[in-house]
């Protein structure tokens, strides 16, 4: 039984812990958006929800053992250094490796050869979330501006008090 239990835990929780974190954060944000009475607290919930989505996307682009999606662009310089002192201990293997690939195809010197996609994490979710973060800040600013106008006109940010004031104004008019 314990083997079965640990199997289920590893399959449902440990292998997918990034999704668990995203879903739990999303639930916290959604709960705040639905039940909180204060408009600022609703906006805080919206921000938590947004963070959950950002974490979800970024974690979808993770590869085990991969590095950031930025190529090594000093390869040409290290190549020349390695070729310069061929007797160097650590540089010779790298230099020989690069020379082979350099002779096989006539490519520009700055180009990095044989890029393996498994070595770099997925750049696409990073790009999408990069713009989403900035746009999220801008939309949060708009929301705060609307909240400020509501406070100016009604003197409160509590939802039920605003509704009561609106109903009272309707009955008067």
């Amino acid at each position, binding site marked *: 039984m314990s083997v079965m239990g640990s199997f289920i835990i590893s*399959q*449902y929780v*440990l*292998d*997918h812990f*990034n*999704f*668990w974190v995203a*879903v*739990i954060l*999303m*639930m916290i944000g*959604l*709960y705040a958006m*639905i*039940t909180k009475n204060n408009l600022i607290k609703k906006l805080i919930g919206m921000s938590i929800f947004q963070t959950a989505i950002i974490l979800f996307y970024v974690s*979808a*682009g*993770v*590869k*085990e053992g*991969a590095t950031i*999606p*930025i*190529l*090594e*662009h000093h390869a040409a310089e290290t190549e020349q250094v390695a070729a310069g002192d061929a007797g160097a201990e650590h540089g010779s293997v790298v230099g020989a490796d690069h020379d082979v690939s350099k002779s096989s195809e006539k490519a*520009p010197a*700055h*180009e*990095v050869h044989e*890029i393996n*996609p*498994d070595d*770099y994490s*997925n*750049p*696409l*979710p*990073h*790009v999408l979330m*990069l*713009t989403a973060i*900035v*746009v999220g*800040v*801008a*939309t949060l*600013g*708009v929301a*705060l*501006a*609307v909240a*400020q*106008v509501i*406070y*100016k*006109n*009604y*003197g409160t940010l509590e939802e039920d008090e605003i509704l009561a004031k609106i109903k009272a104004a309707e009955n008067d008019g």
Partner: protein
Amino acid sequence: MKWIGLIAVIFTGGLLLSAMDDFPNWGDAHSPANSSPVSQYYIEQTMTDSGVPNMVTAVLADYRGYDTMFETVVVLIAGIAIMAILRVAKQVPGGAKPTPAHEVGDQHDIIIGTTCRLLIPVLQLFALYVIAHGHHSPGGGFQGGVILGASFILAAIAKGLDPALQRLPEKRYVKLAFVGVVIYVSFGVACLILGENFLDYGVLHELLPTMSAEEARSHSMLGVEIGVAFTVSMIMFAIYANLASKGELEGGL
């Protein structure tokens, strides 16, 4: 009322968690998102297409140039919307009376003033580095623009909004925000004039004879990122200045 919300939230979360088994494992290099031909192409071909080592910047400013252009426009519209919302509200009579917060901001604290005077130039220099070095190291227009905007906001917090607005008045920051979008669009229009698709930077090498098509892409990305940084930094400051002063642009926090 609260338990209805709790039930809805738990129901939604339970639905999402019940699908957990179908999702790829953490760090799976062969998950559908990671093995899609699009991201494989970005990783393998960015260097040959444009000579830019930072794939995120290349995808942001070149492959998905349209997306980024309209994201910049969204940021600009959000800033204008904030100004519009708060300005209209100014004419509405009644409501809560304004709090006299002016006296608090007028105190000049020597420690805060000196620290900010030392910090702000370094911050702005770092922001320019992040913008200009965006295609060789982590960075780019959005990140550097936000740092640049934060330096203006820091000045506004430390010295009060009025001195900050004397140096960066509303007319100037709105103009600069528009200049950013105009820079971005002008790169696209230049490609159109030279007979290629909108935002297809490769053709811009005809403008400079010594430049190859890859270098033209790389340099156009820098230009586009500068445009993004203009808009983002100015709108960040606009959001702060308008929200902190309830749209009146005086006094501040």
